[in-house]
């Protein structure tokens, strides 16, 4: 249980990154599957080469944001569809990650890592959970602050109304690249910390990660709301923890760990389909607002789905 909380809080950093692209920029970014592993690989290889683990984790941020920059350039300057741009970078990164690690995995046994250093103070228990919660909270506060700055406002407007913000002299291309860099930087950091937590970096550790991120954001915002940025980022962190606890619970009742990816996919599909179901929209109508789940999932459904939903609401 402690491990689930710890992992949830580490993955929360990744979920904040996914929130930035998926919710703020309205851009489902698949780069994260690759940049997560890149961050882990970079940090692991640096740590085994006696680099300070904090510095190695910071390097993971840089490598992650470079990956984000490539996706951003492909999408904005190359006019490649956003989903495809992310997939291209993700696939390319697979080879790069193998190069970074010079193999399929890098063990960190016996090395000083940020996690082993933390354990030196806290051991394994609620104190270590509290420390990781504080770390996740710091990332949240930095993001809250950034999204209130002039640049952060321009980023939010880019995701909200591109036509409007370019008429106020903002380069939406530039803002998208900035957003993708920040997002993948955070994902890289999360990858680095996860590698240090589990004691190795592995080429497969990022596979399907985008679903974990999306599930955290959608579930978190559906349960805890997303009225303001401050509330939304908190919801994302809690969502990541809830998701990890749900996985832990499923494993405890005897689910085969090999089925985990299928579980994540089914969870996200359910989150996307539920709001379109007529009975569900009746339920949310009764609460006199569009359902938070529908809102959280909105960027991932096609506009037709919204239409059918609105007409369903009218019919009800």
């Amino acid at each position, binding site marked *: 249980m402690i491990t689930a909380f710890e992992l949830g809080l580490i993955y929360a950093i990744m979920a904040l990154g996914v929130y930035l692209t998926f919710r703020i920029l309205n851009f489902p970014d698949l780069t994260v599957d690759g940049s997560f592993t890149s961050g882990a690989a970079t940090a692991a290889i640096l740590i085994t080469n006696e680099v300070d683990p904090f510095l190695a984790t910071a390097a993971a941020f840089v490598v992650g944001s470079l990956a984000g920059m490539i996706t951003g350039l492909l999408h904005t300057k190359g006019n490649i569809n956003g989903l495809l741009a992310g997939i291209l970078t993700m696939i390319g990164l697979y080879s790069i990650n193998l190069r970074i690690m010079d193999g399929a995995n890098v063990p960190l046994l016996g090395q000083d890592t940020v996690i082993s250093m933390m354990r030196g103070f806290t051991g394994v228990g609620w104190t270590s959970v509290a420390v990781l919660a504080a770390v996740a909270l710091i990332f949240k506060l930095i993001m809250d602050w950034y999204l*209130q*700055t002039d*640049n952060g406002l321009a980023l939010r407007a880019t995701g909200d*109304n591109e*036509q409007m913000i*370019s*008429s*106020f*002299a*903002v380069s939406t291309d530039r803002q998208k690249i900035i957003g993708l860099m920040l997002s993948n930087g955070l994902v890289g950091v999360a990858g680095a910390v996860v590698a240090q937590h589990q004691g190795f970096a592995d080429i497969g550790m990022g596979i399907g990660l985008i679903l974990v991120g999306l599930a955290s954001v959608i579930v978190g915002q559906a349960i805890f709301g997303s009225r303001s940025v401050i509330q939304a980022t908190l919801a994302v962190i809690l969502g990541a923890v809830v998701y990890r606890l749900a996985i832990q619970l499923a494993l405890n009742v005897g689910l085969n760990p090999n089925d985990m990816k299928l579980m994540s996919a089914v969870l996200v599909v359910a989150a996307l389909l539920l709001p379109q179901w007529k009975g569900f929209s009746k339920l949310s109508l009764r609460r006199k607002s569009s359902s938070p789940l529908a809102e959280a999932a909105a960027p991932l459904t096609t506009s037709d789905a919204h239409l059918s939903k609105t007409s369903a609401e009218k019919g009800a």
Partner: protein
Amino acid sequence: MLNIDSVSKTFFPHTVNERRALVNVNLELKEGDFVTVIGSNGAGKSTLLNTVAGRIHQDTGVVSLDGTDVSRLKEHQRAAKVGRVFQDPMAGTAPNLSIEENLSLADRRGRPRGLSRGVTKAKRDRFAEALKQLELGLEGRLKTKVGLLSGGQRQALSLLMATYSDPRVLLLDEHTAALDPQRAELVTRLTRSVVEDKGLTTLMVTHNMVQALEVGNRLIMMHEGRIILDVGAEQKAQMTPQDLLAEFGKLKGAVVDDKTLLQ
């Protein structure tokens, strides 16, 4: 100060759908000119505005602003000096951002957007002061998300935002057409007062002939990509909508649509 020099634009060239939206258009606006643009559908009014804004790039000709050729600049680069209000009231504001955040975005037009706080106490007071002019009570709802406002309120806010940081040129693209008569009246009134107060050089496309005659100090009529009538302040003051309709009548093949007649 705004010079449109021999500008042409053809859509879908060399196809059956070829459409010459602008044909060798020449137009010069002096500092403080307020020009209304009328014409039937497809006359090239919106293309003209989009060419000035940089959303559409002309095939030939030069657009220059304050003596500088801006033809190659992208939309967001020109926007440092060009303010716009769109026909769609939803287009000019960011719905998920609050009123004060939207105004803060407008406030930074043409200046670098760094990591200083977007909305400060001092700015908030300035925004509230500016919102009072709209007489919509928005100054008390600074933290309300813009998406919750009505179309008329959003369009009034769009106008305030587009003019907030004193652009060199203001482009209005049928910005009252999607509003009910009362709201359209309000936005027209606000437009006149803000353009007058700030002495903005303005290009306003409208379908409404009465509005085109009442507002501004110059009127141009477009047809099939050309400017076919250019009327100065004195002559414009004497004209009636009937005179304009008569001008339309002279055109071979020009169809005055119902919407125009009804107004």
